[in-house]
């Protein structure tokens, strides 16, 4: 369903989701079409755009967001500049962290993402910390920590939920279940319903379809309002479906870039990705709903063209940006006199 908000705002959400998709397609192309741009591995958010974008649509600039190894989408969703995200991914001086962080650790303190960890569960307790700080300072800011199903296997998840509940922290545990642990094998959690774990600590939980913008947006509105209103930590599980290009060590554009026309002509999509785009792609799902609500295909395609153009320019910006100076490597270990 479409979120119950004015059309302009609905389209703002579409633009953001498309921007994440297009920017990450560039990220994959950096790896596929160039040598040496990305030396290591990386992760993309493709297929999970609806959750990050819909949640961040309810957040203020000074609210805190924490993310994971799959951070590119969250940073853009919270208001990050795709140019600086793509530049960071390829280690450029113009990136959010001057190229020091790279794809795994993109952080954008200016938009409320003050630190990013690629360690599974690495930001859960830190999110408790920003929520606690806001509470102590009497600020209205809340914290949303995005994490994957795999992070619930780490002990720090339990410890943080417990502390957050005991201290009534303004913290949203937003778990994105993609039914996958990158590189993982075997059983992950003994709890068949992951919500049973926070429930055991008397934290209220909600399970939603993470592909449907309307559902996520509506849920996020009420969760954000309640946590901002002092009703303590809440837990949401948003269920998504793994994008087929993510089924490898490194993401691959196995069906090429997403064509928005596949929304109304699924048969045109390459077979390897056809079913996923037909049934599980949050963006094409949303596009179909907007069309049903009266938008023309031409209008929707025009929005995509505009976003794609901006994403192309962001990729060019990243590629044209200078690398940071080698000698500056030794900077920044300390903020103060430690050096």
């Amino acid at each position: 369903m479409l979120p119950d908000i004015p059309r302009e705002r609905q389209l703002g959400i579409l633009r953001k989701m498309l921007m994440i998709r297009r920017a990450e397609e560039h990220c994959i192309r950096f790896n596929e079409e160039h040598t040496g741009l990305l030396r290591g591995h990386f992760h993309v958010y493709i297929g999970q755009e609806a959750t990050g974008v819909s949640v961040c649509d309810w957040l203020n600039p000074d609210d805190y967001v924490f993310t994971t190894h799959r951070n590119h989408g969250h940073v853009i969703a919270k208001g990050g500049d795709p140019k600086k995200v793509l530049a960071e991914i390829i280690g450029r001086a113009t990136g959010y962290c001057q190229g020091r962080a790279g794809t795994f650790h993109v952080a954008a303190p200016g938009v409320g993402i003050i630190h990013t960890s690629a360690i599974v569960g690495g930001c859960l307790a830190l999110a408790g910390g920003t929520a606690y700080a806001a509470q102590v300072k009497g600020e209205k800011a809340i914290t949303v920590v995005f994490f994957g199903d795999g992070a619930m296997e780490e002990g720090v998840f339990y410890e943080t939920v417990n502390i957050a509940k005991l201290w009534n922290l303004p913290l949203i545990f937003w778990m994105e279940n993609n039914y996958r642990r990158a590189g993982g094998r075997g059983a992950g959690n003994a709890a068949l319903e992951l919500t049973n774990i926070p429930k055991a600590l008397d934290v209220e939980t909600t399970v939603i379809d993470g592909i449907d913008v309307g559902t996520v947006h509506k849920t996020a509105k009420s969760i954000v309002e309640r946590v901002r209103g002092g009703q303590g930590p809440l837990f949401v599980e948003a269920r998504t479906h793994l994008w087929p290009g993510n089924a490898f060590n490194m993401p691959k554009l196995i069906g090429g870039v997403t064509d928005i026309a596949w929304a109304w002509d699924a048969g045109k999509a390459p077979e390897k990705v056809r079913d996923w785009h037909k049934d599980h792609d949050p963006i094409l799902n949303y596009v179909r709903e907007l069309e049903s609500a009266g938008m023309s295909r031409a209008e929707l395609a025009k929005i995509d063209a505009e976003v794609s153009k901006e994403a192309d320019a962001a990729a060019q910006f990243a590629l044209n940006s200078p690398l940071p100076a080698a000698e500056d490597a030794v900077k920044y270990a300390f903020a103060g006199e430690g050096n």
Partner: protein
Amino acid sequence: MPQEMTFGEALLEAIDEVAEKDPRIVMFNPSFAGEAGHAKLAALRKKYAARIKYPPIAEIGFCGVAIGAAMAGLRPIVDISTATFSYEAIAQIVNEAAIAHSNSGGLTSAPVTFYLKFGIRGGGGVQHSGSPQSWYWNTPGLQVVMPSTPADAKGLMRTVLLKSKDPTIFFGHDRLLDDKGMVPDGAYEIPLGKADVKRAGKDVTIIALSIQVPRALAAAEILAKEGIDAEVIDPRTLQPLDKPALLASVKKTGRVVITDESPDNCGVAAGLAAIIADEGFASLRAPIKRVSIPPVPVPYAVPQEDYVTPLAGRIAEVARALCR
């Protein structure tokens, strides 16, 4: 017939040979292989399926379980994968495994083998480029093994699995995993605490472990062209440590460069330098020099990552300056 194989394949071979005869060997998340060893890894996983667990992403939990199982008589091998993930488990490794023998007055021991893929791998970013060898060497009660070649990796892994009575941190550098080398035929062991001279020379000693050995050998080649004859010696294990061999080499050359891919501050090179200063001072004709990582979290950007990596050029430069 000696066979050519990768570092990863050599490890897998050692594990297979020992596990075949010793049912106490159990494995958590065996991965070891690198790219080239995939077939061998798949075969190992199949052969020992009943003795293999793929635990949840719960490092402190599964490392602790392995330690307890070792105390109860099993001989677990835990592949932690990226070395930095061991930081999640450090409370169990350092606070429990390492102290058990001493703390029990010699009654309890925890012969578990932790395998850590460490080092600056290229584009890993700071959290996938960790080199904690000096932390673990700084922990009494842990054996620290850091081979540089497939042959050494196999011989040392066999020794650890067959004979070790203590917890061992076994380091494999990410960039070595697919390196090939000749591996002797059949079953053989390399004792812990036995250094190996990888290149004999008379002008300057370069002490190097793991990935730094091929870098030191490359530096020695550069120096040779300039008429400087470098000796490259590989302690292979830090704990136990072959002090006599290191001191003998320094005595011969009178100059020493120590290189390791851990940070300068209290790093492996610093620890080795202290020993040479204490026990080999009289042999020295020049100050002891270290080539390691400057004290900064490893940056991601290509030129900066290269800048902090102790590559052959930097080793040669420092050694050259000593010989002037």
